[in-house]
C-alpha cells in the first residue's frame, strides 16, 4: 500500500506563496484561513545571513496524534496513500485535533469542522498532482509514494540531505525538506 509524502527542495524555493494561493483556489479555502503557509527561518548576522524558506502544511504523520485523540473517528487515516483526513460529516468541531497537532496544521472551518491539507486526495485519485505541487513555479515540490524506492520522492531522499520538522515530537512526519 502506498504511503504518500513530499520532498520540498529549500534550495530552489523562493517563498513566493504560489503553493498557498493555489491551495486556496483549488480547495476553496475561506478568507482568513490557509491549509499551507511559508516559514522563513533567518539565521546568522548581516551580511553573513542564511535563509531557509519552507512551504509547510499537515505532515500526514505516520503516528498522527490528531487521529488518536479524535472522539468521533472523523479524523482518520485514508486507505489511499495513508493520507490523514477529516470526515466533515462526523466532525463535531471539538478542536481536540487542533490542539494536538504540533505543527499547527489544523483550523476550524467557518462551517464548523476541522480542516487542513488533504494532500489534494481528490486530485491524486484522478492521477493529478496536488495543487501546490502542480503550481510551484520553481518546481521545488515533489509528491509521491515513500514506500516505492523508484518514486521521485524516494530517489531525492536517497541522494540529498534532508530534515523533517519537530522530529522529537514522535509523530513521524512525512514532509521532508531537502537542503
Amino acid at each position, binding site marked *: 500500500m502506498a504511503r504518500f509524502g513530499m520532498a520540498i*527542495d529549500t*534550495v*530552489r524555493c*523562493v*517563498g*513566493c*506563496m*504560489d503553493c*498557498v*494561493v*493555489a491551495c*486556496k*483556489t*483549488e480547495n*476553496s479555502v475561506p*478568507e*482568513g484561513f*490557509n491549509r499551507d503557509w511559508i516559514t522563513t527561518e*533567518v539565521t*546568522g*548576522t*548581516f*551580511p553573513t*545571513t*542564511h*535563509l531557509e*524558506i519552507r512551504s509547510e502544511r499537515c505532515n500526514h504523520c505516520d503516528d498522527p496524534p490528531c487521529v488518536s485523540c479524535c472522539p468521533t473517528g472523523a479524523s482518520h487515516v485514508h486507505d489511499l496513500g495513508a493520507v490523514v483526513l477529516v470526515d466533515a460529516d462526523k466532525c463535531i468541531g471539538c478542536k481536540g485535533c487542533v490542539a494536538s497537532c504540533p505543527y499547527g496544521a489544523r483550523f476550524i472551518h467557518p462551517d464548523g469542522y476541522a480542516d487542513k491539507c488533504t494532500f489534494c486526495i481528490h486530485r491524486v485519485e*484522478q*492521477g*493529478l498532482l496536488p495543487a501546490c505541487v*502542480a*503550481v*510551484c*513555479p*520553481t*518546481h*521545488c515540490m515533489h509528491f509521491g509514494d515513500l514506500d516505492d524506492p523508484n518514486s521521485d520522492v524516494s530517489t531525492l531522499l536517497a541522494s540529498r540531505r534532508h530534515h523533517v520538522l519537530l522530529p522529537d515530537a514522535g509523530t513521524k512526519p512525512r514532509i521532508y525538506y531537502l537542503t
Partner: protein
Amino acid sequence: MSTYSRRKFLKISAATVTVASGAAGAAGAAASAKAAAAPDKPSKRAAQGVQRIPTYCDICFWKCGAIASVRDGVLWKIEGNPEDPLSRGRLCPRGTGGIGAHFDPDRLKRPLIRKQERGQEVWAEVSWDEAFAYIATKMHAIKETYGPESVAMFAHGIGGNFLKHTLKAFGTPNFAAPSFAQCRGPRDVGFRLTFGEDVGSPERTDIKNAQCLVLIGSHLGENMHNSQVQEFAEAVGNGASIIVVDPRFSVAASKARHYLPIKPGTDLALLLAWMHVLVEEGLYDKEYVAAHGFGFDQFAARIASCTPEWAYPETGIDPAVIRETAREMARHRPATLVHPGRHATWYGDDTQRSRAVALLNALLGSWGHKGGFYAPSSMDVPGYPYPAYPKPAKPKLDNPGMRYPFAHEAISTGIREATITGAPYPIKAWFTYATNLIQALPNEDETIKAIKNLDLLVVVDVIPNEIAGWADVVLPEAVYLERFDDLNVELFREPFVALRQPVVDAPHGQKPNWWMAKKLAETLGLAQYYPWKDIEEYLDHRLTAAGMSLADLKTRGIVRGAPQPTVVEEGASLAFETPSGKIEFYSLQLEKAGFDPVPVYTRHAEGPPASFRLLFGRSPVHSFSRTQSNRILSDMMDENEVWLNADMARRMDLKSGDYVCLRNQDGVVSNRVRVKATERIRPDCVYMVHGFGHTARGLKHAFGKGASDSQLVTRYATDPLMGGTGMNVNFVTIEPEAARG
C-alpha cells in the same frame, strides 16, 4: 540621439515568423492542437459542470497564458496553459490568485461623474451614454479652444490599445506610460546606446542556461516575472554560480555563492571596478571584443583608474571580493549573464549605470550567446487596416526640443510638467488606463497640481484607486477574466500568439476597454475609425490575415510558431544597430551630445544625520498598487512592513511588529507601518514593498493598511539622457506611531 524606432528594431534584429513557416511550425501547431483537445479528463470534468477556458493573465504585464476553470457557472480557479512558453503551465502567485479580481467587492461597478471638488471622491452613478456624452462635450470644447493635442493619455498594459486608437483618431500625439521614465527606460536606453537594441519585455535573458548569474538589485523570486523566476530556479538547481549585489539580503541573495552587501547608490563604482579587473587581468573575451567592439582602447584608458581599491571606500566591498567575483564571471563567460534588471530608475544616472551593465556583458561576450542574451522572435500578425489618423498640428510635448536627447519613448513626467506649466502648450485633459498615477509618478503634489489644471480627467480602471479619486469621470472596466482584449504577439524565446477571452460575465455590467473606446469614438463622431462591429470581428480579421482563425485560438488560447535560432550556438548571427555597427565601448553619439562617452561614477548625496535611505521593491503576491483589495492576495499579505537592520532596531528600542511612522526629508509623514527588525538589510537604509498605504476611500479593504513609499518619494533625480526619474534619493527617519498628526 537614438535614431532607431521600435519598428525598425523589430524588423532588423528580431525574426518575425508566420504560422505556416515550415515543418517545425506545422508540427508544433499539430502537437498543441492535440494537447488542447485533451485537457485532463475533459469529459468527466464537463459532466461535473467544469468548463476550462484558455485566456491570458493581466495581473501583470508578463501576460502568461492560462486556463480558467468555471464550476457550475462560478469562476473556480486559473492555472497556467501548458502550451504557453511564458508560463510553461505554471502561473505566478498573483496570476493564481487573479480570480480574486473578479470577486473583489470593492471594484468599480458603474460609470461615475464627479459631484464635488476633485479628490473628494463624491460621485453620481450615471449611464454609459451620459458618461460618454459628458466626456465628448468636454473634449470638443478643449479641441475648439486649445486643439486636439491638448488631450493626453497614460496607460499601462495591452488594454490601453483601443483607447489610444480613439485618441489618435481624435488628433493627439501625447501618450505616455510610466513604465518608461519611472521604470525600465534608463535600462533600455543604456543597452541601445551600447548594443543598438534594448532587452525588451519580457527580457531576452537566457537565465536558465547561465552558468554565472549576476543580479544587481534584481530581486527575482520576490519580483515574480514568471519566466524569469522559473528560469532562476532552474539555474539555481543546475548549480549556476550566483552573485547578488543588494543592500538587502534578498531571497535571491540567499541562493548566492557571493553576496555583496553594497552601499546604496554606488553600483556604478562596482561595475567600473569589475570591468577594470577584466581588462587589467586580460580576462575579457578578446576575440569577441576585437570582432564586435568599437572604441575599446579609449574605453580601457578611461577605466584604468577604477581599481577595486578605488571602489572599496565607495561601495564597502572588499577589493579581494571584487577581484574574485570578476574572475568568477570570466571563468564562465560567455555563459555569464549580468542581469539588466527592470525597475532601473534609482539615482538619476541610471542610463549610464545600465550602460555599464551592458559593457560588462560585452566584455564577457554574453550578448548573443547561450546563457547570456538571446535574439527573440515573434509571429507576424498584421495590424488592423484602419484609416489614417489626422496629423497633429503640434508635436508631442513630453520632451520639448529633445531636452532629453536619448528618450525613445514618451516621458510621463514630461506630460505632467507641461500640464503644470502650460508650455509648450496647455494640456487640458488626461485619460488614464490601468495606471494609478498618484502612486506611479514621484512627487504626488506635482501630480495633483497638474490635475488641478485639467478640464477633464477620465480614469478607466477596475478598482477605485487613488487616481480615480481625482477623476471627473470614472469608467469601470470588466476585469481580464470578463473580456476580450487585443492579441498578445510578443517577442520571446519562440514566436506565439495568445488570445484573451471572457471566462465569466462582468458582475455589474462593467465593460471591456475595446467597447468603451469604440463607443467614445462614435460619440465623438469618429465612427469611421471602428469599421468592425465587435472585437471578435477585429480579432478574426487580424488572425485570418496571419493564416490563423479566432475559432481555433478560442479553443487553444495559444498558437506557437516555428522556433528560430536564438543564439550564436544555434546559428543566429550578431548585428548591432549602433552608428558604428558595433558594440560601442566608447560612444561618439554620447560625446557629441555632451555626455560621458564611457560611464563615470559620481558620488550621490547622503541623507541628513540619523536618517535612512528609503528603498522599495516588490512582493511576490502583489502587482504595483493594483492588487491590495484582491481578497485572495490580501490574505497572503495585507500590509507592508518597514525593514530595519536588527542592530539599529535594538538601538532604537524597536522590535518586529511595532508600529512606526516614517518622516521624509521634506517633512512628509507616512501612515503607520510595522517594523520588521531583520538581519537582512544594511543599517543605512530601510526597505518597503511598494503599493500599500492606500488612501482611496473606495478601497475599503486596503484603505490605511501599511504605508506608501510613493508618498515619501517627494524628491527625484532626473536622468539627463532620457528624463527618467531616479527615486532612491529620499531619506526617512523613524518615529513612534503617536507622533503622527
